[in-house]
C-alpha cells in the first residue's frame, strides 16, 4: 500500500501538469496574436454565449459528417470529462472514494473508443481531405492517454497495487503531455484557439440566426489599406486562422479547387497560420492545384502575397467569394474576409489587379459600368415594352433594380419576362434608367473599396430622390450590396429578390399561373442568394406553384456549388484544369432534369456558356411567365 497513496496524488497531478503545459504552449502561441490590429470584442457576451455557439452552431456544421460528429462527441467529451474528473481527484475525499475512480475509468474508456474512431479515419489510409503531419500522431497520443488513464483509474478503483500502476501512469503521461504539448503547433491547437475564437468571433451576428455576410467597410483614410502581412489582420482574425483543424471540408466544397485552379482554402488558411511564425511545422495536406510550393520569408511583418512570397497572387484571384468554405467550416473561420482583405491591399496599395481585371475595374470607376457601356443603354433590352422610369414618375411602389445583367442579350430575355409578369400583376413599378450605376459589387470583391464606396454613395444619393417602398432585383449580387452592404454607407432600403416577390404575387392571387407538369426542373442556388442571404425557399416555392417536376442536385440550398461567376473570377480568369460551370452542369445533368432553373444573371451567363450541355437554362421568371401564359 506504500505506492497507493502517491498514485492518487500523482495521477491528478499529471492532469494538472498537462493543463499547465497546455496553458504555457497556448500562451506562447497567443503571444503571436498580439501583433495583430486591435478589434472590438464583446468579451462577456461572447463568453456567455460560448456554450450555445459551440453546441448549436458548431454542432450544426460538424453533424453534416455523421461519423466525424460522433467521433468528436465521444473523443472530446470523453477527454474533457476524464481530465476534469481526474483533476478534481486532487481533493482527498474524492481520491479516497473508490466508486469515483470507476466513473473516471469509464470516462477514460469512452475516450479510448473515441481515439480508435479518430485513428480509423487515418489508418490504414488517411481520408483524402485530411492533413497528415502531426495529425497522424494524434490517434496514438489519444490512445496512450486514454488507455493509460483507464488502467490507472481501474487500478485505483480496485485498489490493486504493483508494478502495473507506474507503467499505466507512464503511458497516460506520455499521451497526455504529448497532447498538451500539441496545443502550440499541433492538432490540439484547434481546441484552445477554437473555443477562444467562438468567444471573440469577428462576426458575432452569424450566431444570432441572421446571415452576417456583408463585407466590413474599409476606412480609406487608414495609414495602410488592406492586409499585406499577418500583422495587418486584426488579432481575432489571426486567432481564427489558428482555430483551423485542417479537416479539409473547405477544400471539398471549394469550386476553384475542384476546377484545378491554384486555390485550396485549407492551405490558404494554413499559409496565414504559417506566415505568422517561422516555427510552424510544414503543411501536410493537399496543395494548391498546379500551384508552387510555399516560399518566401515568414513572420508577422513578412509580405504574404507575391510571385516570390508565401501565397502566389493567382491563388488570391481564383476565389469566387462563394462562401462555400465558410459554410462548411466547423471552426467558423471566415476565409472570404481574409481573401478580400488581402485583395484590398493588392488593389488599393499596389495596383496589382490581375491584368484582365484592370479594364472592367477601370471602366467601373470612370463610367459606372464594368463594360464601359453608356448607362442610358441599360434599358435597351426592353425596346418595345413600356418601362416606367423613376425620373419621369418621381416615385413608385416598387423600384426595379436592373443590374449589369440588363446589358446582356440573353439575360434581357429574363428581365423582359419579369417585367411582363409585373405588368400582368399590375404592380406599380419603375426603373432608374440612365441614373442607375453599377452597385460596385465587382469592384468590392476585387478589393477596390474606393470605387465601391464612390459608386455606393452615388447610388444612395440617386435613390434618396425617389419615393418607393421596396427595391426588387433579379440580381442577387446587387441584392446583397443594396440590402447588406449599403447600410454601412448610409443607404437603408428594403430589398427583395424577384423570386420572393413573384412568390408574394402568386400567394396574393395577383398572378395565376397554370401548371407545367411536363417540365423536369432542377434549381441551381445562387451563392449570393442562398449562402449570403439564406434565401433558398422562395424560388423552390415558385417552381412548386407552377407544378413542374422538381429534383434536387446533390449539392443544393446553402451547400450548393458556385457557378464560377462571382467575386470577379470571370474577369480575373485564372487558368485551371477544368471550368467551374462545366462541373456544375455535370452535377445538374446527374438529376436528369431537362431544365436548370436559375435566379441570377451571373449563373445564367456561366451555365449557359457550357458547351455540349443537354439541359436548358431558364430563369425562374421565364418559367413562371410560361406558366402564366399557359394558365390563360
Amino acid at each position, binding site marked *: 500500500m506504500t505506492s497507493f497513496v502517491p498514485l492518487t496524488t500523482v495521477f491528478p497531478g499529471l492532469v494538472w501538469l498537462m493543463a499547465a503545459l497546455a496553458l504555457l504552449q497556448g500562451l506562447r502561441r497567443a503571444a503571436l496574436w498580439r501583433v495583430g490590429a486591435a478589434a472590438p470584442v464583446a468579451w462577456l457576451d461572447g463568453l456567455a454565449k460560448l456554450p450555445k455557439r459551440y453546441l448549436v452552431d458548431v454542432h450544426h456544421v460538424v453533424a453534416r459528417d455523421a461519423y466525424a460528429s460522433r467521433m468528436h462527441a465521444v473523443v472530446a467529451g470523453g477527454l474533457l470529462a476524464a481530465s476534469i474528473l481526474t483533476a478534481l481527484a486532487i481533493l482527498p475525499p474524492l481520491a479516497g472514494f473508490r466508486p469515483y475512480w470507476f466513473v473516471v475509468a469509464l470516462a477514460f474508456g469512452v475516450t479510448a473508443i473515441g481515439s480508435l474512431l479518430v485513428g480509423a479515419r487515418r489508418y490504414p489510409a488517411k481520408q483524402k481531405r485530411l492533413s497528415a503531419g502531426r495529425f497522424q500522431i494524434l490517434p496514438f497520443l489519444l490512445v496512450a492517454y486514454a488507455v493509460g488513464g483507464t488502467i490507472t483509474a481501474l487500478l485505483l478503483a480496485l485498489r490493486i497495487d504493483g508494478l502495473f500502476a507506474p507503467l499505466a501512469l507512464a503511458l497516460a503521461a506520455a499521451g497526455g503531455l504529448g497532447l498538451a504539448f500539441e496545443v502550440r503547433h499541433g492538432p490540439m491547437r484547434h481546441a484552445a484557439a477554437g473555443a477562444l475564437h467562438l468567444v471573440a468571433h469577428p462576426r458575432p451576428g452569424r450566431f444570432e440566426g441572421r446571415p452576417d455576410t456583408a463585407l466590413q467597410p474599409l476606412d480609406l483614410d487608414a495609414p495602410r*489599406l488592406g492586409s499585406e502581412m499577418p500583422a495587418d489582420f486584426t488579432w481575432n482574425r489571426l486567432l481564427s486562422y489558428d482555430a483551423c483543424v485542417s479537416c479539409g471540408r473547405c477544400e471539398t466544397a471549394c469550386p476553384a479547387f475542384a476546377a484545378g485552379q491554384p486555390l485550396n482554402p485549407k492551405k490558404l488558411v494554413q499559409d496565414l497560420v504559417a506566415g505568422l511564425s517561422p516555427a510552424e511545422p510544414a503543411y501536410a495536406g493537399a496543395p494548391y492545384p498546379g500551384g508552387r510550393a510555399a516560399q518566401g520569408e515568414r513572420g508577422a511583418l513578412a509580405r504574404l502575397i507575391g510571385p516570390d512570397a508565401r501565397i502566389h497572387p493567382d491563388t488570391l484571384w481564383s476565389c469566387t467569394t462563394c462562401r462555400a468554405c465558410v459554410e462548411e467550416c466547423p471552426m467558423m473561420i471566415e476565409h472570404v474576409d481574409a481573401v478580400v482583405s488581402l485583395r484590398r491591399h493588392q*488593389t*488599393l496599395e*499596389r*495596383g*496589382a*489587379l490581375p*491584368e484582365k481585371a484592370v479594364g472592367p475595374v477601370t471602366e467601373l470607376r470612370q463610367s459606372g459600368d464594368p463594360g464601359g457601356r*453608356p448607362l442610358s443603354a441599360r434599358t435597351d433590352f426592353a425596346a418595345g415594352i413600356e418601362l416606367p422610369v423613376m425620373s419621369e414618375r418621381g416615385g413608385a411602389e416598387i423600384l426595379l433594380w436592373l443590374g449589369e445583367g440588363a446589358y446582356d442579350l440573353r439575360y434581357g430575355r429574363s428581365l423582359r419576362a419579369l417585367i411582363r409578369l409585373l405588368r400582368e400583376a399590375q404592380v406599380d413599378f419603375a426603373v432608374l434608367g440612365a441614373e442607375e450605376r453599377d452597385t460596385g459589387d465587382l469592384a468590392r470583391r476585387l478589393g*477596390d473599396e474606393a470605387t465601391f464606396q464612390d459608386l455606393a454613395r452615388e447610388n444612395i444619393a440617386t435613390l434618396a430622390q425617389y419615393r418607393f417602398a421596396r427595391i426588387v432585383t433579379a440580381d442577387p449580387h446587387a441584392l446583397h450590396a443594396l440590402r447588406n452592404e449599403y447600410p454601412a454607407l448610409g443607404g437603408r432600403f428594403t430589398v427583395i429578390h424577384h423570386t420572393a416577390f413573384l412568390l408574394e404575387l402568386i400567394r396574393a392571387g395577383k398572378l395565376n399561373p397554370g401548371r407545367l407538369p411536363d417540365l423536369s426542373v432542377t434549381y441551381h442556388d445562387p451563392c449570393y442568394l442562398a449562402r449570403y442571404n439564406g434565401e433558398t425557399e422562395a424560388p423552390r416555392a415558385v417552381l412548386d406553384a407552377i407544378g413542374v417536376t422538381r429534383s434536387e442536385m446533390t449539392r443544393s440550398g446553402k451547400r450548393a456549388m458556385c457557378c464560377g461567376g462571382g467575386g470577379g473570377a470571370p474577369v480575373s480568369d485564372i487558368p485551371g484544369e477544368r471550368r467551374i460551370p462545366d462541373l456544375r452542369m455535370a452535377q445538374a445533368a446527374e438529376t436528369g432534369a431537362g431544365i436548370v432553373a436559375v435566379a441570377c444573371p451571373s449563373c445564367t451567363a456561366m451555365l449557359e456558356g457550357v458547351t455540349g450541355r443537354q439541359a436548358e437554362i431558364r430563369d425562374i421568371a421565364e418559367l413562371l411567365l410560361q406558366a402564366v401564359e399557359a394558365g390563360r
Partner: protein
Amino acid sequence: MKIAVLLSAGRHPVSGAAVLPRMEAQAIRLAAGLGEAIGLHAGPDAAAVREALGLGLARIEHVAIPEGGDPVPALIARLAALAPDLVLAGRRGQGGAESGIVPYALADALDLLLIPDVIAVTSGDGAGTLTLDQSLGRGALRRVSLRGPVLATVHPDAPPPLAYAYGRARRGSIDGLGSAPTLTAGPDMAVEERPYRRRPKLVKGAPTGGSAAERLKAATGESGSAAKGRLLVEPDPEEAAREILAYLRQIGVLAASSGASSDASTPTP
C-alpha cells in the same frame, strides 16, 4: 533618365466623366518601365490629373493657367527648365481640354525631335540612347534608335494602362508651380461639335443594285471564287495537296513559285 509625361484634363468617351485620357495613362506605364518620371500639367485645376498619381506617377507638377488659356507657353517654359531626356504625350484628344496639336507645338518651340505613335520605349545600348517602337498601323512596327532628348506621342496599341491604386494616388504629390508667367489666349478653336454618326462602310466593287440576296451573294463571294471552286470527292492526297497549294498561291498566301520566298510583305517586327 529624366522623363516627363504630359497630362491633360480629359473626358471619358462614353460617360463624359473627368478622367485622364487613356493614352496618357499608357504613357505613364511606358515611363514607369524606364525610370523616375514626373507628370506635367498646365490647366486651371490640378484635380483633373490627380488620377495619374494612382496610375504610376509619384509626382505631378502643375502650372496654373486661367480657364481657356493656352497651355503651350507654360509647358515650353517648364520643359525648357526641366530639360528631360524623354517627353511622352498622348497622340490625340478625346473630347476634353486636350489637343493632339500640343506635342507638335512643343517640339517645334523646343526644337525637339518628335516621334509619333510609339508603343514601346527602352533604353538603348549606348549611354543616353533610346529605342522606340513606332506603330505604322495594322500591326506593322518600325524600330527607331536615337540619341538625345526626344518627344514621343503614344499610340493606343501601347500596353494597356496600369491599374489605378487608390493608396498610390493618396501618397503622390502635386506641386503647384504658380501661375504661368504670361497669359496667352489659346488658338482660335472655332470648331463645330456634333455627335458622331456611324456611316455604312462601302465595299469596293460591290453591286449597288439588285436584290438584297444578290448583294449578299456578291459580298460573301458565292458567285465569285467560292462558286468557281472544284469539288473533289475522296481525292488522292497528293492531288488534294496540289489543289490546296494552287489555291493558296492563287489568293496570294503563298509566293507564286515554291522555293523562292519573298518576305517583302512581312512587317518589320
